[in-house]
């Protein structure tokens, strides 16, 4: 499970799955479900020849927010973007960085990044992609008042056009993580012509704006987004094969899965852990376990009692049984977490075990923290079923160590505000993850003033030094060592209790072929075709 390879193999029916199957089969529902299904879900098989045509219908949980990648702050937008736009560099299955709109790159010194751009690439509106365009895009990200990319490109001091197909990024500081950042929205190139001519309407209408394998047709708000094949796509190797892609929002997870089951859609972006076993046993769909970059855990507030007391933080950590949570709540659709860096990352250190439950030690820490008979605090978490469940399990585990945890349920807007204002004891944090480990660590654990993602308020000189160093060093082995050291310190200092690195299972109709799962969870449909 903890490998960086996506698990595509049909899974043998586990004991749990077997029990569930028995339960359903012998219960009154068997005739409705259609009897036992022993045939394991077929995996996406390469080999047969791809063919052109068809419309892929994709179900998402929420509507996209904007079509402008530089103004986008929501994860769901990216799913569409990765088919419409292209970044300078792209991720591969193993999180390596591959050429995208840039054919190659080099780093003559730690503060300079030079990209050789691909020739002959045209935007969907017919304009050329070149170095001037790249510069325009970076300038826009840095200066457009509503740009949400500012933070990501802040380290780029200036951009020089070396020649028509070469750009040079001059950095303020060495930044080993920048390249990986440019595999997503911060590296996506939009047509300057569209930006200039369309103005704010670009947010709703991305016609002509991208260079990707698919081009924008329409966005009927609240109903669907429609893309069609870009027949002039520069990369003649493989797809695009699909005629069209149609995205549709379906907010309820169960209903979304049922829509796939009944053939109303062909792809869903995520299945809840509770549905994974049943979905895998269902012949009407193929489930692909996509390991993610995500890190889910709980931040502890270092700035106020009780968790300004290190011993009490440790008492909580030792009282929790992470393995049991991942098994019982996440149903093993994820791995117990040993820190902020997911197993999919090259920086993951599998030799560091997750914090182990040890009640005796938890009690000793309680005594050390001056609360030998336990203490009371509250957890702030999202009011969605799986988080409530997780909180209930944690509550029961902590009670065994004499710690009383009250559960405060809020919606995500209130959660974000509580977190930003450090108005919590222990708060749920679900980070979707970034391809470079820097994106999962720096902003959370580096000393910060005012409002930041460092919700715990941790300020530790050693951690700060390590985090700075990881940006300066470009050698992976050395960076990995630094991240291992960081992880060990985090186990001691506990700004966060790490719970799970979730797997994000996606489900497809069996006729969907050629999907390549990349751990950032984005669904790129260039090589996908319909049987």
């Amino acid at each position, binding site marked *: 499970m903890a490998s960086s390879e996506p698990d595509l193999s049909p899974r043998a029916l586990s004991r749990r799955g077997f029990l569930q199957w028995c339960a359903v089969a012998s219960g009154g529902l068997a005739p409705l*479900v259609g009897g036992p299904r022993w045939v394991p879900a077929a995996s996406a098989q390469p080999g047969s020849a791809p063919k052109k045509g068809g419309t892929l219908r994709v179900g998402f949980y929420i509507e996209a927010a904007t079509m402008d990648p530089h103004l986008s702050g929501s994860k769901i937008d990216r799913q569409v973007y990765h088919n419409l736009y292209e970044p300078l560099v792209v991720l591969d299955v193993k999180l390596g960085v591959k050429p995208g709109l840039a054919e190659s790159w080099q780093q003559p010194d730690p503060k300079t990044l030079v990209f050789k751009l691909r020739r002959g690439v045209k935007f969907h509106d017919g304009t050329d992609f070149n170095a001037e365009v790249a510069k325009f895009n970076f300038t826009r990200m840095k200066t457009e008042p509503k740009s949400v990319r500012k933070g990501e490109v802040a380290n780029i001091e200036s951009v020089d056009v070396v020649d028509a197909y070469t750009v040079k990024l001059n950095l303020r500081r060495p930044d080993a993580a920048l390249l990986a950042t440019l595999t997503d929205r911060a590296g996506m190139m939009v047509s300057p012509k569209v930006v200039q001519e369309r103005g704010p309407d670009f947010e709703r209408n991305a016609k002509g704006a991208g260079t990707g394998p698919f081009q924008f047709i329409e966005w009927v708000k609240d109903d669907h987004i429609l893309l069609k094949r870009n027949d002039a796509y520069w990369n003649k190797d493989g797809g695009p094969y699909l005629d069209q892609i149609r995205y549709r929002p379906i907010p309820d997870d169960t209903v979304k899965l049922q829509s796939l089951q009944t053939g109303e859609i062909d792809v869903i972006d995520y299945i809840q852990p*509770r549905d994974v076993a049943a979905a895998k046993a269902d012949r009407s769909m193929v489930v692909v376990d996509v390991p993610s970059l995500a890190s889910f855990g709980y931040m502890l507030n270092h700035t106020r009692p009780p968790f300004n007391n290190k011993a009490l933080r440790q008492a909580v950590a030792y009282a929790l049984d992470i393995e049991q949570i991942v098994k*019982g709540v996440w149903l093993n659709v994820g791995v117990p977490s040993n820190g902020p860096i997911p197993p999919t990352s090259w920086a993951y250190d599998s030799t560091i075990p997750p914090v182990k439950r040890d009640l005796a030690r938890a009690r000793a820490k309680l005594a050390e923290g001056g609360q030998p008979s336990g203490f009371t605090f509250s957890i702030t978490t999202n009011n969605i079923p799986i988080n409530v469940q997780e909180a*209930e399990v944690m509550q029961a585990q902590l009670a065994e160590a004499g710690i009383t945890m009250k559960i*405060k349920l809020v*919606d995500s807007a209130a959660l974000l505000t509580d977190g930003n204002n450090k108005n919590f004891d222990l708060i749920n944090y679900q980070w979707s993850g970034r391809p470079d480990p820097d994106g999962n660590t720096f902003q959370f654990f580096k000393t910060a003033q005012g409002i930041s993602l460092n919700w715990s308020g941790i300020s530790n000189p050693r951690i700060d030094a390590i985090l700075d160093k990881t940006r300066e060093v470009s050698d992976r082995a050395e960076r990995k060592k630094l991240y291992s050291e960081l992880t060990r310190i985090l186990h001691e200092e506990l700004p966060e209790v790490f719970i799970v690195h979730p797997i994000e299972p996606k489900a497809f109709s069996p006729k969907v072929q050629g999907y390549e799962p990349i751990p950032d969870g984005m669904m790129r449909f260039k090589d996908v075709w319909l049987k």
Partner: protein
Amino acid sequence: MAAARPVRVRRWMLLRRAASARLAPFGAVVMLVTLGVAVLAPLLAPYDPLKQELGNSLARPGRAHLLGTDNIGRDVLSRVIWGTRISLVAGFVSVAMATVAGSLLGLVAGYWGGRTDGLVMRLMDAVLSFPPLVLALALGAVLGADLTGVLIALGVVYTPTFARLMRGQVLTIKAREYVDAARGLGAPGWRIAWRHVLPNAATPIVVQASLSVAFAILAEASLSFLGLGIQPPEASWGSMINAGRGYLQQAPWIVFGPGAALFVTVLGLNFLGDAVRDALDPRSAS
């Protein structure tokens, strides 16, 4: 109309009584049982409703667990039994709040009339014209997502109904002779309201309240769907149904237990409410 009343009323009463006779006992039995379960929950529940057994989650109904276990291995039957308390509290307390607040407001508006009346009733109209779920959702979020928040939110949503009802009654009663007489004797306004108007207006209020409890219990379930509910690990039937709705296909018993309890109770309350209405109907009582 007055002349026809005696004959009509008598027949009417008989008719109503007969109609409700068959269903009312069922409603009464259901409510007695439900109340009994709520009171005796600690004695009746076979397990600790909070005791988790992660290794035994989603166990199907059987001898060990009559209604199966939920997704973190808690006994569904025990949770349904304990949940009775919270669901009933949600239903009765929120309606009680609405009844008291609404009646007082209606009384004030109806009795004093004029500007007070205008202000109170416009306020009630404003509350009424809010989409109820949105009002409850926002109120609950402001007050904090726990049982108190839900109770107050539901209470506010139901208040205008009672205020309108009370005001209407007060206006009718105010015109009657005995109120005039009392006023003539120099009794202060609040005493007239308290001694004469309130008792006479109580009947339709009780009828409305008894029917509203059923709606409130259901509304609590709807609110938990939107993420506004009681504080875990406690459970109401609504929160259990909501937590189990994702398991409808694989483990329907999680929803079946609380769903059946909710269904039967709401049905019983409705029968009972109808019976109360029939028995207390002002037309038959006067």
